């Protein structure tokens, strides 16, 4: 369960985020949509304690994120390419993250075999540094790294951007299986309305830092969202 209360962030006088209250129950697949500057990435950054809130707090499984670091044990995330270490090969990167998440080399290997299809032979075993990979392949590596060490919460900012259509479909499948047994909470933000409606049970719309819509996904959700955004 991730609870957000009275959360706000101000830069000088400009308020970029203000969420009165938001509760994400364990095992939910949660989608965040909104136009540029709506506050999606800011929210995720605060959830990861990379930015301090001006007021309020976020509680991740009973841990206030800016007071204790224990949430790191069960939270995996990928925000952007700055989460990758450019001078490592993907294999070395996975070993490094695995090490930090309590997996040994053999564990990492077993874990990665599930994603052979997703990587499409373009990431693993290639003698290339991460910085030399294409944007899409970098993203693949980052997304999979976020799922290492069986986290209870997975946070992905714009996971579908830069991916090819085949990989997008495969990613949707991966995200769905991740939340199958209702143990892992997945938080995803996206500009692509059809992708989020397909993956997420619940969609929250942010606009200029405010929560304006909170929808349980159904057949009509995509239409509703399209109506909302086509102003």
């Amino acid at each position, binding site marked *: 369960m991730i609870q957000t209360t009275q959360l706000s962030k101000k830069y000088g006088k400009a308020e970029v985020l203000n969420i009165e209250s938001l509760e994400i129950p364990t095992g939910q697949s949660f989608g965040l949509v909104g136009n540029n500057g709506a506050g999606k990435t800011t929210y995720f950054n605060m959830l*990861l*304690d*990379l*930015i*301090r809130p001006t007021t309020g707090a976020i509680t991740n499984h009973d841990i206030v994120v800016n007071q204790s670091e224990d949430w*790191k*044990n069960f*939270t995996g*995330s990928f*925000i952007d390419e*700055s*989460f*990758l*270490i*450019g*001078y*490592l*090969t993907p294999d*070395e990167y996975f*070993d*490094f*993250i695995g*090490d*930090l*998440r*309590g997996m040994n080399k053999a564990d990492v290997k077993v874990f990665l075999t599930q994603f052979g299809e997703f990587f499409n032979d373009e990431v693993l075993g290639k*003698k*290339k*540094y991460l*910085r*030399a990979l294409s944007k899409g392949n970098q993203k693949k590596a980052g997304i999979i790294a976020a799922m290492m*060490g069986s986290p209870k919460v997975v946070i992905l900012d714009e996971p579908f951007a830069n991916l090819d259509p085949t990989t997008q479909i495969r990613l949707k499948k991966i995200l769905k299986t991740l939340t199958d047994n209702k143990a892992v909470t997945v938080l995803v933000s996206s500009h692509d309305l059809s992708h989020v409606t397909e993956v997420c049970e619940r969609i929250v719309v942010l606009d200029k830092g405010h929560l304006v819509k909170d929808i349980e996904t159904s057949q009509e959700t995509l239409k509703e969202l399209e109506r909302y955004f086509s102003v």
Partner: protein
Amino acid sequence: MISHFLSLEWKQFFRSSSFSKSVGAKILIGFFALYFTAGFLLIGIGGYWILKKQFPEQDPLVLVNSFLMYVIVADLMFRYLMQKLPVMNIKPLLVLPIQKSKIVHFILIKSSLSFFNIMGLFFYVPFSVVLITEGYSLEGVLGWLASMILIIQSINFFNFLVNKNNSVLVALLLLLIFGYLIQYFNWFDLPGFIGQGFDAVYQSPILSLLFLCMVIGLYMVNFKQLRSEVYLDALISEQTKEINSADLSFLERLGDLAPFIKNDLRLMWRNKRTKSSVWMIAMGLLYGLFFYPNPMYADMEFIYVLVGIFSTGTLLINFGQFIPAWDSGYYNMLMSQNFKYERYLKSKFTIMTISVVALFVLGIPYVYFGWKVLLVHFAAMIYNVGVNTHVILYGGTFNRKRINLDEKAAFNFQGTGAVQWIIGIPLMILPMAIFGLINWLIGFEIATVTIAVMGFVGIALHKKLMATITKKYITNKYVMIHAFNQEN
């Protein structure tokens, strides 16, 4: 069109964030530039008389000419290493309605005005002026000067052609060694022969037109080659080489520090910025050779401390001063990962300590200059491990500047702030001062022991000090994340 290009260049220079930020670094670069120009200028003005005095029976111009071959080859090699065609920033221009040939002309002409080409003029121009005032023929000297300028330009363009070809560098090196050998064994006076060519230019200035033809020819070749390569896949993209990753599994025995230490070693080997710092270690290790062979310093024992701290601590200083900015590119990720900050800092501490001890061992041959030297180096090693590692880690909490690892290190002051300068005081000046004072008041042995004891105290307090430093890093976390996110 040209004015557009020029205004872009102007803005690029003045709006780069490094320009407005680090005043100290700029002053230093300015100082270097001034130093070099002043040096060349002095040699240019005084060179004539110096040569006249040293070799009274020879004509200074002829003498200079006989050395020109070395100058040219050395210049070529220096440029090969330092000067690259500035092409990366034309990418956004490619899709705009500008003729590609114009862009290429602009790049080439811009390159011919580079600092590398101006530098030499500070020697050649005053030297020529002196020659004229000393009664050399006006046309002759002007022809000679023109040839020099044209040769510099030829080197400039030639360099871009060879830049793509490693074997040319080897050939140049061999040529230089070969020329030296020829000179040394007096088989055939190749530099002299080339020198005679330049003498001939002075005799009949019309020959300088040959060099003009050479410049034009090289320019044309460059133009042709560049023009055919102004595409994203050829010139502008950097080729990705196949890499081979070394097996670092022997580091596993370092336990939970291993992943970080492995990463740091890879960081050092795989990035342009750090790779050149690795060469600095060799330089630092040999630092003592500047002082010890010189009898002037034989009685100045406090110099031993400086050399000791520096030669055992080059990696500590070069690497340590930019902790944690080395990791600035992915600091966000580290901060959302599951590990204790202390573990991260401890891994940096371990790397620095290992390097200090290793460099001390490599520096043992300094015992040749007396057992006192080695003794002081040993004390300095203890001081480095006990005091300087902690000081430099503490100094890291003040780092607020992002480092781009892909940029070269020479004259790169990115990431440098006031801290990097101030931290030198406790690092080197303090032990030197303490040693010097006690050595003067009491004696050599006590002074050496004091330095070592200070180091041992630091080692004893290691746990406590690390806890304090870690706390400081954690309180500064958000400021650092914010600062490291600022692109340059």
